[in-house]
């Protein structure tokens, strides 16, 4: 795909600070003024536009069901959520499962595990799903300032991946192959020739939802789409990563080297990668109709 870097730079720029951004922010503000928030409209908005940073935490909390649609209930519900977190946190201290020196993300993991009734016997042993939780928590910690908000967002986001997207996530490698074939069949052929297709960093891309792969400023724009109901967007981010680093990948001729490179991609161009991925996703899956 021959792309025009100038055009992409401009569209990223306008999305962030330009006229389009201002209009979008206004229409989101109108949506947020309703006494009872319209979840469906908020979903459509997030699918279509990047969320302005100042409203991101609020919208994510509503979409993930941490706070209910009625404004009037928000204070009461958040008070309850806060108490719940504190109760469990205190319990973990009593049984000496956490100490003052325990890192915040590990505290989140233990609180989450206790709430599910799945606190492990041996805390020093981490399962793959614990590592996924920790990676997502680390990224969320960079995006969300308030500890209580952050815990609930991590916990509900992980639950969303494990429940709502449980059946879709294993399908994504196959879908990735389909779209890569449409966009650049030569690159796909190269990856297949190196037997790299089965060894791509799928855990990092799909299970961790790019946490630890993309810097948080780019990542949150992907999570806007995932939280508002599309896990397919992450396939297009993967496609764009492959397309962006095509030259580098073609120069590498072993699956191990390709995987190693993709697990540590350069962090300077990721905003453009995400913008192109969103464009590609809209191109293939259509743009959701947004009515305010």
């Amino acid at each position, binding site marked *: 795909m021959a792309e025009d870097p100038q055009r992409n730079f401009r569209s990223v720029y306008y999305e962030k600070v330009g006229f389009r951004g201002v209009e979008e922010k206004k229409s989101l503000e109108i949506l947020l003024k309703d006494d009872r928030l319209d979840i469906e409209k908020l979903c459509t908005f997030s699918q279509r536009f990047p969320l302005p940073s100042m409203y991101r935490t609020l919208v994510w909390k509503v979409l993930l069901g941490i706070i*209910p*649609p009625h404004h009037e*209930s928000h204070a009461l*519900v958040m008070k309850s959520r806060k108490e719940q977190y504190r*109760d*469990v946190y205190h319990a973990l201290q009593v*049984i000496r499962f956490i100490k003052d020196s325990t890192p915040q993300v590990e505290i989140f993991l233990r609180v989450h595990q206790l*709430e599910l009734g799945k606190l492990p016997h041996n805390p020093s042993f981490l399962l793959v799903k614990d590592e996924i939780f920790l990676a997502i928590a680390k990224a969320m910690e960079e995006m969300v300032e308030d500890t209580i908000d952050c815990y609930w967002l991590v916990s509900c986001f992980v639950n969303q991946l494990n429940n709502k997207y449980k059946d879709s996530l294993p399908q994504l490698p196959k879908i990735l192959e389909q779209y890569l074939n449409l966009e650049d069949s030569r690159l796909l052929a190269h990856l297949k020739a190196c037997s790299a297709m089965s060894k791509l960093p799928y855990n990092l891309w799909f299970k961790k939802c790019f946490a630890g792969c993309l810097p948080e400023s780019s990542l949150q724009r992907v999570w806007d789409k995932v939280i508002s109901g599309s896990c397919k967007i992450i396939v297009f981010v993967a496609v764009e990563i492959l397309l962006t680093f095509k030259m580098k990948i073609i120069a590498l001729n072993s699956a191990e080297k390709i995987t190693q490179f993709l697990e540590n991609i350069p962090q300077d161009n990721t905003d453009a990668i995400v913008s192109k991925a969103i464009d590609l996703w809209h191109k293939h899956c259509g743009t959701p109709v947004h009515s305010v």
Partner: protein
Amino acid sequence: YLEDVKIQARGQLQAVESRYKAQKRITQTFELEILDLYGRLEKDSLLKKLEDEKTEAAE
């Protein structure tokens, strides 16, 4: 409007119920911890007894 009130009530109820469930999990966790601690105490006192006997035998 009636529907609205119902939805609002459900939203509040869900949060309070989840807090209650978490509290229940805490109770269960504490129960297990207590059993574990009793087990450790008994093991300790058993070991101590064995050692005492050994010392006595040696004397």
